[in-house]
């Protein structure tokens, strides 16, 4: 009873703050990260979703949504990272998402950090490719994400990441 009252209050607060549908910013770099993001997009139904990735050729897979391309980056190239961060800042500022979701890698890490600065809730789903240890980006950003998920039960920890199934 208490639990369901809590949820109702949250929902009322959410409705009061955002009269429109929740705005989701969904971010993934190329290849497997993008494929995994596509496999969870059903979770965004009823939301206003904008996508951010690193190849313009993915645009056709998400017709009708705002779509942004950023350059790919990794932690070995500081200049590329700064460029990506600058571009993502303008995307996050423009979209003002309620929720930022990423399946990795570096652009997702940056988007979660920037989204959080503007008050968005954040979700990090670590790639299913990381079967022995979490990704570096995930390990860095996970503790500050509101929902931090791994796709392998043996990598789950009580303080996070948590396991709630996989994209397969």
């Amino acid at each position: 009873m208490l639990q369901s009252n809590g949820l109702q209050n949250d929902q009322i607060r959410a409705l009061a703050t955002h009269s429109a549908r929740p705005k989701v910013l969904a971010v993934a770099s190329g290849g497997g990260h993008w494929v995994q993001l596509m496999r969870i997009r059903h979770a965004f139904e009823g939301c206003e979703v904008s996508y951010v990735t690193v190849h313009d050729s993915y645009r056709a897979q998400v017709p009708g949504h705002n779509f942004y391309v950023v350059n790919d980056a990794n932690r070995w190239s500081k200049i590329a990272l700064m460029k990506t961060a600058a571009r993502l800042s303008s995307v996050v500022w423009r979209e003002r998402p309620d929720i930022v979701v990423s399946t990795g890698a570096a652009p997702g890490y940056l988007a979660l950090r920037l989204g959080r600065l503007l008050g968005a809730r954040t979700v990090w789903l670590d790639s299913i490719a990381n079967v022995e240890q979490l990704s570096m980006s995930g390990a860095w950003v996970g503790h500050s994400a509101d929902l931090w998920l791994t796709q392998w039960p043996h990598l789950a920890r009580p303080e996070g990441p948590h396991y709630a199934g996989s994209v397969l």
Partner: protein
Amino acid sequence: MIFVTVGTQGHFDRLVRTVDEWAGMRGKPDVFAQIGPSDYRYENISAERFIDPGEFRRRVESASLVIAHAGMGSIITALELGKRILVMPRRASLGEHRNDHQVATATRFSEQGRIEVAFDEQELSLKLDQLEVSCDQDRLDPQASSHLIGAIRTFIETGHVRLDGDAL
């Protein structure tokens, strides 16, 4: 047709060269390879450096067998379209990737019986001979597990989610 793919990042000539030699030895005319940023001239197969995501999916769809690096984009797409996939993981010691996570991914997925794995060139030729006559398998659901979709959706809607028995 046999479709070979090394993904969107670095080349992986060790894989493609082995398939090229095998195709020459066995007289297989119908092999297409997406080879990444490689300058290697292949003799027995047709090759392109990159193809767009739409063509990628069409190539997988029409393939009798997919041969790939152990990247999740390739693996998930093949499973979604119900294709047999034989992967060879990239190795950090040979400069093919930054770390050996593809070896771990390949090992874990082959233990689950979802994919075929060759850990070196010799095993790759051997498995190519075995798998050559292969039929399609069941297609993967187009979405992630309902548990995962449900967890993310609940989090978007309420800001809470119940995982591992603990409320977040």
